[in-house]
């Protein structure tokens, strides 16, 4: 597929916001490009203007402060894995990051890209959902903050409207220290999209589950309590998802494995 587009690389966040405002219908943001470029190559996306989000001052900043862990739009998955703050305070975030694709792709792919792409099989979404992270969304006219529990709107859809961009992801300081584990069922031991993925976190007596590849969006389940039996917990999680059958697996197997993972996680995450 031969496709020509304009490439713009704004130098400030406000310049970026202004550009997006002017290209609401024909613009696409380029972060790591690990989804956008294949989509353009395969003719699935035809943006007239590609706006690089990585070039403005501070886009690649990852820092920990009183608000928590803040990640700009150019922060790659490997940046997260290299960050001492992320590793020490948010092991769950790193656990999910590790399951995302291959090392080479993790060098390019960004955390924001992974959630803005809004694939049902996003590997970062489960971590952000369980850790109560928020999306700081900016546009030419202002800023709004949306918790990730309300961020995904459907298959490959988010609450972002044209002109808006995800400027920062903030993982609250209150979630630091949460323990958990992400179980991802794959076809090979190497890099693969998940057949299903289940993350469980345990923090200050509170359990949370997030499930990928099992519904139109990644799903957060925070109704499971310590008192629930493993079967009851699995029932609650399964009630929140609606897996389909496709080339990676049948609905029947996905349902079964989500239940298995929930029970395994309850036993393993201590």
């Amino acid at each position: 597929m031969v496709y020509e587009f304009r490439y713009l690389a704004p130098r400030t966040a406000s310049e970026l916001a202004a550009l997006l405002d002017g290209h609401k219908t024909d613009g696409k943001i380029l972060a790591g490009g690990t989804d956008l470029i294949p989509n353009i190559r395969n003719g699935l996306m035809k943006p007239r203007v590609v706006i690089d989000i990585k070039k403005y001052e501070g886009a690649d900043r990852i820092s920990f402060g009183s608000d928590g862990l803040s990640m700009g739009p150019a922060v790659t998955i490997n940046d997260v894995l290299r960050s001492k703050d992320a590793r020490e305070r948010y092991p769950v975030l790193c656990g999910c990051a590790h399951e995302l694709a291959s090392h080479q792709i993790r060098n390019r792919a960004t955390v924001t890209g992974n959630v803005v792409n809004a694939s049902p099989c996003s590997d970062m979404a489960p971590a952000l959902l369980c850790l109560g992270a928020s999306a700081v969304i900016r546009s030419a006219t202002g800023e709004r903050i949306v918790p990730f529990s309300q961020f995904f709107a459907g298959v490959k859809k988010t609450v972002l409207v044209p002109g808006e961009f995800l400027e920062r992801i903030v993982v609250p300081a209150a979630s630091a220290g949460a323990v958990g584990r992400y179980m991802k069922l794959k076809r090979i031991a190497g890099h693969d999209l998940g057949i299903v993925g289940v993350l469980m976190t345990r923090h200050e007596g509170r359990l949370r589950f997030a499930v990928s590849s099992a519904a139109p969006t990644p799903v957060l389940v925070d109704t499971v309590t310590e008192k629930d039996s493993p079967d009851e917990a699995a029932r609650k999680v399964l009630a929140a998802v609606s897996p389909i059958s496709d080339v990676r697996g049948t609905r029947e197997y996905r349902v079964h494995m989500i239940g298995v993972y929930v029970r395994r996680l309850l036993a393993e995450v201590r």
Partner: protein
Amino acid sequence: MFDDIKTADLAYVGKKAGRPDMVEKLTGEAMFVSDMELPGMLHAQLKKSPHARARIKHIETAKAAALPGVRAIITGEELDYHIGLYIVDKYILAKGEVRHYGEAVAAVAAETLEQARAAVEAIEVEYESLPPVLHHMDALKPDAPLVHPDLGTYSYVTAAFTPKPGTNIANHTKLRKGDVDKGFAESAYIVEREYSCPSVQHVPMETHVAIVQWGKGDKVSIWTSAQSPFTVRNLFCHAFKLPHINVRVQTPYVGGGFGGKAGIGVEPLCAVLSRKANGKPVKFQASREEEFSLLPCRSALTYRIKTGISADGRILAQHMTMYWDSGAYADYAVNVTRASGFSASGPYEIPNAWVDAYTIYTNKPYGTAYRGFGHVEFHWAVERHMELIASAIGMDPLEFRLKNALRPGCHTMTGEEILPGTGNVVKCIEEAARRVGYGTLTAAEKAREKKTGWKIGKGVAALQKAPAMPSFTATSVVLKMNEDGSVLVNLALCDYGQGTYASIRQIVAERLGFDIEKVKVAFENDTDRDPYDWQTVASKGLLLSGNAAILAAEDLLKTAYAVAGEALRANPRDLAHDGTKVYIKHHPSKSVSFSSMAVGLAMPNGNGIGGPLIGVGRYIAQGLSNLDKETGEGNPAIDWTYGAHGMIVEVNEDTGEYRVLKVASVYDVGRAINPDIVRGQAIGGMIQGLGTAICEGYIYDQQGRLLNPSFTDNKIPTAKDLPMEIECAVVETPQVDGPYGARGVGEHSMISVAPALGNAIQKATGAEITHMPMRFEDVWRAIQKKEPIDNWITKSPVGSCRSAPELRNHE
């Protein structure tokens, strides 16, 4: 034919020796066709069919032709060349009708790749879509659409193949041995089951690529990533009716082939574009997606086996029906069918055998050679079948295998007698079993089971393969001595990664008695420079070319001795040599050096004698015969390489998840010329086999479109998928006519890996899996006795593995 010398008495053979291509490949210095650019070179791109079957009503190219940089556009309509290896059934570009999704219908050559892509997008094709026939079992139904209605008019190799015009059967291979009805009547048990595996892709690192220049006077130069330069030349000349002298094929370093680059590929396409572009060189390199659907794959197989067994566990009769999915063209699939037909029982004696092997056309990408040439696929069936028979009759599967394995005095299905030098499959099976501790769990394994809750199972599977090749397959090697007494080896057998050149180098150095540093095997192949070799396929390279290398070394020495005899006034019979000189045995101080004789010896008075030293070795397969087309009897095998895998696997019964804890592979290679290369082949093939066992396979929708046309959903294993422990070992029963006793092992490592896994899973869980691959879900379904998913053609009405075991007692 060749002396069997103890390894201890050899300088290089059987010892460690590095690969001559190692540094070039590790540093990126090695030049592949992918890297090459020629002055004025154009780039080709293809317009491909979005339909599995459709009539081409019109192709509009005017808009594309007007685009900048476009130098040539070609459609099938203007070409009339039929190509084909065994059945000449394919056009260079689809003509009249497209027969599979992804088939090329038009081609463009332009100055840049981008211009070529833009031009392809500007080509408009009007199709009338036709109902495709997708599953090979559906294609056998009387009302199935015909993929090739003109099959009766095609030319084909009549000595080996039997197409059935008016049907979708491209070939029917038969084998009849003994009296099957009598065998079944005498049997105490009869077990009948059906097995299947889907099409898979070779996935070479370097995708198919060629550059072709159609020069003045119809002189054609071809640079291609191919396994067999002489076969490319021969098929090319036949297709274009050109004298062989006009065509030169060069293959530099080749980035893998695995059978997918065995015949002819994208070369004719580049050639017709170059001709139309007034002789500018044209390059085409397939994208990874094109590798999956434009270029050929491995055929799918459905295999029904019915076996009669005596009360004491001896096979008395076996009825075997193979249904090979050829896809849209016959290519190698017909010969895969033939070669699999005569080997269909695996390494077991079947006194009464009946084989029908069909190659069936469907509207899917076509099948070709793939490492193992059918044996990976049908051994999946045979070795699962042996396991299922054993469990059905209450016998240990290992004991059942050993009881029926081929031993000296047994006869193969084609009537060939097994001799003590044929190879020892019994020893391979026993050794593989021993290395995995078959039959029991160790204390550590029991403790592991207790800790993980996963069940550990151990399985064994055996294998055999002979080269599938014409009975008169030949090769040659030429040695040329350089001025300093070093030696250049020229041959057209390619080393596209398997490492044969390292072994050839050892053989030449060994036989010459030279320091190995003085022997160079020229890596890039060239039909204008190198002596003939048929093809680099079939695991026959080391045996045939190794023998030719020995003969070439002997010829070079003979010539050198003649010159030295003249110079030293000695009878050549009284001469001997070391790494640098020829000397008189009884006056060792009287000698003449190889370097002084290399390009002709100058006597002290200036007279010249001899001339450049060249050694020629020619070798042809001997004693092979065509198989009788009605009975399949004859001698098809120059050598049989036997082997076996033992496998330990742990399985979670609740989920079907499993991990391979250990693989032990054992092959009777006759003699390991280069043990490291045998090990490399053993591990590489095993992991490739494991890939097809655990996850690989084409999945189509109801319209015949490939649903997993890329690495996103057509996964192959990575380094992380390696088993936790791998052992490789050899049994060495010398091949009497092999070089230093060696026989080939290039393909064998991939064979029977899948059934070893299936057997181990069955041992652990009782799951009776009969279709490949064994994804976790497939294992879970088999354990839970749920209906298997048959999504190789989604929602196909034809199940791939729904047959139930039939066990009946003949009183």
